[in-house]
Structures are given as C-alpha cells and as structure tokens.
C-alpha cells in the first residue's frame, strides 16, 4: 500500500507550494474569459456559437423550444448546441460553468433556468465571461437585467393574463353563468399565484359565474384526478366548469370526469401540451394558452446574435425590452389546428423585429 499514497502526497505538496508561492485571485487565469467587454458586438456572423439549454428533451414543449432554436440557427447558417440538464439545478450550473470556460467571445446562450434561484449564478458567470445571455421564465424579482451588460434580456409570460384568458373562455363555454371549481398549482410559486389572480379578475367581470371551491393539485395530473373526484362528489351537478392552472391538472380533471361519466363540464388549462391540444381538437377540453415554444427557442438566440454581430447595441435595447412579457395565445377548437405543429417564421427573428411580441415590461 505504500506506493499508493504517494500521488496524494505529491498533489498536496504541489497545491501547498502553489498556495505559498502565489496569492489567491478572484478569477481563473488563462484563455476564454475576455472580461466583460461585451457591449462591442463585433463578431463575424460565422464565429458566433449558439447554445440553447432546457430541462429535458422528453418534454414536448421544451423539445419544440430547441427545434425553434435549430430553425433560427439554420436561418443564419449556423447550428445550435442543444443542452439539457434533466431538471437538475446542480447539473445546469455545471454545464454553464463548463461552457463559459471555453471560448466565450461570440457565445450566445438562450437559457431556461430551472428555478428563480438558479438565475443569479448563470447571470454572473455570463457577465464575468462576456457571453451574450437571454433567460426565460424564471428570475428573482429583485434581480435587475439592466444592471448587467451581458444579460441582454429576460422574457416571461404574464400569468395573470393567461389565468384571465382561460377564465373568460370558461365563462363563455358555460353560457356566462353557473358554478366552477379551480385547481391551483403549487401554492408558493409565482405562476400559481398569478394565474389564480387572473381567474379572480375574470370572475369579477363575469358576476354570474360562481367559484364553488378552489383546491391545490400541485400542477400534477395524478393529484388533480383525486381532487376532482372529491370535488365532484361534494358539489355534484352544480359544477359546470373546471379551471386548472396548467394542462396536466386539466387532463387529470378530464380523467375524473370520464370516470364519473360526466361530459357536460367544460375544462380549461394552460401550457398547450400535446395531449391538451388533442383534447381540444376532440372537443373534450375547452381552451388552453400557448407561449409558443419554438418562438421562445429562436428569439433568445436571435437577440444574442443581433447584439454579437453588432446589428443591435445593448444600449439601444429599450429599458422596457430588457425584461418583458411576451404575447401568449388562447387556443380553442377554432384555432387549434394552427398550434398542433407550430412553426417559426423568419420575420419574427429579424434584428429590427425582435421585441414585436412584447406585452410590456415586467413591472
């Protein structure tokens, strides 16, 4: 065993010697990190590296996001590097830090942070390395995009708006009066709170619609099935409609309705997952809301590409366009065909048209 511990001792010795000889530094030496000089976008279009990162390609919405990124990359004659991190925050950070250790001068990243708290390390890493970053969906409210040069834009969706849209669609489907129940998401998430606030706005505008009950089913299909069964037993035929804060719960509610032999109840959700679109086509579900995944995958890369190649300067991006709500689309039976296989259009990604879907700055 004697020889086996020598390498350990050697490594330790070298490390201690290095520590003694030189001090500690804030950043790693060596190539890559150009150091924040990002506002000068002078990359040759051919030198730009495009990276899209989402949780999981097995999620149809996120796979369509990466496909949209590929479509944009093809449009400008490049390819997109597709990264996934399996919904694991630690793995996401590991991938980003490895990515930022490479050549970052013309690196464009379109990132879906796993949660709000995962955004700060990504933003600071990109800022230090001088890589162009666009984030979507998750950002702590107190983190200000305009404080950074490399973080070009943050895009999200107004949950109040989508909650109200499907609330109104539900009210219309039940003829403007009657009882509904609400299935809420994970209660301490912004999405769940905003969407329910949207429902409350919708109820205020439809005084004859009565909210009989609201329960949380934690965005889960299985929990929604159980909760809906209970609510159907409790309220019976008074229930004319079910408002769910996402499609998975809406699909769970549909399952419960089928088991109970009820086909007179309207169901609405949010996210436009393929099963929900099928249900809308068949007429068993009333409405859902789409954020347009392929567009999301392309627009983040497009913003970074336009800045990297100098067609758009960071300081010329309006303050309102640094953190903004993008347009979302209410899907009902009459327009569901347009969303079953969504496609991107080149015009959406033109450098003078990047912010055309803005519904206003995030307040």
């Amino acid at each position, binding site marked *: 065993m004697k020889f086996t511990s020598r390498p350990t001792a050697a490594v330790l010795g070298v490390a201690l010697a290095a520590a003694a000889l030189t001090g500690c530094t*804030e950043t790693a030496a060596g190539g890559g990190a150009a150091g924040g000089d990002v506002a000068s976008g002078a990359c040759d279009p051919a030198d730009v590296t495009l990276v899209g990162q989402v949780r999981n390609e097995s999620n149809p919405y996120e796979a369509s996001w990466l496909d949209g990124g590929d479509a944009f990359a093809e449009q400008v004659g490049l390819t997109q590097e597709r990264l996934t991190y399996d919904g694991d925050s630690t793995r996401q950070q590991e991938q980003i830090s*490895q990515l930022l250790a*490479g050549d970052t001068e013309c690196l464009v990243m379109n990132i879906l942070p796993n*949660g709000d708290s995962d955004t700060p390390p990504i933003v600071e890493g990109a800022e230090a390395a001088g890589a162009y970053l666009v984030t979507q969906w998750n950002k702590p409210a107190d983190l200000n995009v305009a404080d950074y040069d490399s973080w070009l834009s943050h895009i999200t969706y107004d949950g109040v708006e989508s909650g109200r849209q499907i609330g109104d669609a539900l009210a219309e489907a039940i003829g403007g009066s009657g009882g509904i129940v609400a299935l809420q998401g994970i209660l301490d998430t912004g999405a769940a709170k905003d969407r329910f606030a949207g429902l409350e706005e919708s109820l205020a505008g439809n005084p004859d619609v009565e909210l009989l009950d609201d329960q949380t089913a934690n965005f889960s299909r299985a929990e929604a099935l159980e909760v809906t069964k209970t609510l159907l037993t409790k309220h019976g035929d008074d229930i004319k409609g079910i408002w769910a804060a996402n499609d998975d719960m809406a699909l769970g509610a549909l399952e419960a309705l089928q088991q109970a032999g009820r086909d007179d109840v309207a169901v609405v959700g949010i996210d436009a997952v393929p099963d929900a679109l099928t249900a809308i086509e068949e007429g068993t579900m009333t409405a859902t809301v789409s954020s347009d995944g392929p567009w999301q995958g392309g627009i983040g890369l497009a913003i970074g590409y336009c800045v990297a190649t100098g067609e758009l300067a960071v300081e010329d991006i309006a303050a309102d366009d640094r953190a903004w709500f993008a347009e979302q689309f209410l899907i009902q039976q009459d327009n569901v065909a347009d969303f079953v296989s969504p496609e991107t259009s080149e015009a959406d990604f033109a450098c003078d048209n990047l912010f055309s879907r803005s519904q206003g700055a995030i307040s």
Partner: protein
Amino acid sequence: MSTPVLAQPASDAPVVARPTVGQRLTSFMPVIALVVLLAALTVVDPGFFTLSSLTAAVRTAAPLVVLAAGATVVVLCGGIDLSIAALCSLATVFFALWLPDLGGLTTLAIVAVAGAIGALQGVAHVLLRIPSFIVTLGGMSIFSAIALVISDAGPIPVSDRGTTHWLTLYVAGVLPMAFVVALVVVAVVSLVLRLTPVGSWVRAIGYSESAARLAGSPVDLVKVGAFTLSGACAGLAAVMLVSRNFSGSPTMADNLLLPAVAAIVVGGTAITGGHGSLWRSLAGALVVTLLRVGLPIVGVPSAYEQILYGAIIVAAVALTLDRSKVLIIK
C-alpha cells in the same frame, strides 16, 4: 558499559512483498482511465483541452470529490452510505437558514451538525444491528423530507456571500480553492488512515468483520467514525455547493448520490469493502465529472449521452478493479 542485553523482539514489520509491474499498473489504472478519457474528449473537441476548461472541470468536481471521499471510508468498512446526497441537500438548507444568525461560524456548524447526523446513523447501524444500506436508505428519505419541510419546498437565496467567498477564489490563478480544500480532505484522511492503526482496522473490517472483531479491533467505534466522517464530508460539500449557487435548496445535491457511488467504484475501490483508497475515489470523481460535463459540452446528443455514460462507467470499473483483491462479488 554493560547494557542489559534484551532479546530483540522480532521485527513487527510484516514482510513486504514488492509489487509487481502488473500490480503497480493496476493501482494506477484510475489515473490512466482519467487520462484516456481526457484524451478522447480532446480528440472530439480540441477546444476542451484548455487551462480554463480544465479549471472549470475541477471546480465542478470539488463537491463530488468530498462526498465520495467521505463515503469511501464507509465502503472500505464494507458498508454503504446512501444518505450522503440527501444529507448534503439538507445541509445546504441549514446553511441558508443559519447564515444570518451564525455568520462566519456557519461553515463549522454545518460540518459539525452533518457529522453528528452521520454519527447518529452509525450508532443506529452498530447498536441496532441494522444493515448500513437500510439505515442510510431510511436516512436518505428522512433528510429529504426534513429539508423539504423546513425550506417550504423551495430554494432559499443566500444574500451574504462573504462567508463562502474564500471558496470561490483561485490558488495561483488556476486551482479553484474548493478543489484545493477537496484535495486537503483526501490527503488528511488518507494520511490518518495510513499513519494510525485506523487504516488497518478499516481494511480488516472490510475484508472480514468477524475476524477483525476476534482480533480485538474496535469495530463498532471505527464504523461510527466512518459514518461521522461521511456525514461531515456531506456538510462540507454542501458549503461548496452553496458558495457556487448562492442558494440552499432541498434537492440541490440529490442527483449527486449515484455519481458519488460511481466515483468510488470507478476509482477501483471494492464495493464489498477492504480494498481501495481515497485517492482512487479522487480520480474516480474526476472521471465521473468529466463524463457529466464533458459529454454534453463536446456535443454528444442527450439521448446518446446516458448510453455512453453507462458504458464508460462499466468499462472504467472493468479497467480499474484489481480482481486479485476481490474474491467475492455481490
């Protein structure tokens, strides 16, 4: 000048058989596997073999090295600690919650508390005679649940970064401080195992617990010590994760359990106990980290990534395991 002539006791140094070339080669296999993997990644993407890229990789590896190092001692004793990742996640939550009150002492408090929790599992293991697999499996789900409850099932941001700032520095501009700390942990534990009887006790327990007990080794004490060390290492790994992510979260380290076990096995430590060492786990952790971050970065599609990961892990174990030391496979 007449010193009483005492009968010289027989030298208690055992006869040391010089290792053969083959044995030496096997013992360096983890390092060889590491170099081969690095070479392969460089061939696929020449941009991967740069100083900054390697710096980022060892920085990423630091928490995994510490986790694997602690658990290696438990494995050497013939047990397994499945709770390390969940305990590490719980410790990140504790860290985020306690930092405002404890300030600079938080790091020490976390390592101590995590060590104490590890010791508790060790005591349950030796006193109640429950297999370590079961004790730590129970621990894993208990710690996960506690972390979820006390954190309200969400991440807790750490706004005061001063306490962990030292971990994000770089020694000599290239070596991340977190990795240096990981090396120090590996070196110190290795030295303690080598220079004190603890090392022989651990190996004896791993090879044959009943024989070790008959020979008078403090089996129970050593096992509790191993679990304590494993817990403390999970605490230290948690501090490293917080320093990197600026938050504590009840699931932050959960996905590091299998990589940590893989690191131990890829290093060539026998999962059945007895044979192995910490520096092997260090090399194993670097191999696993290179696979985790390297494969996607050099452009392997995510569908093939998992296949390659599994295949390379099995191949690496086949390479690094010293079959002459492992007579029983389970």
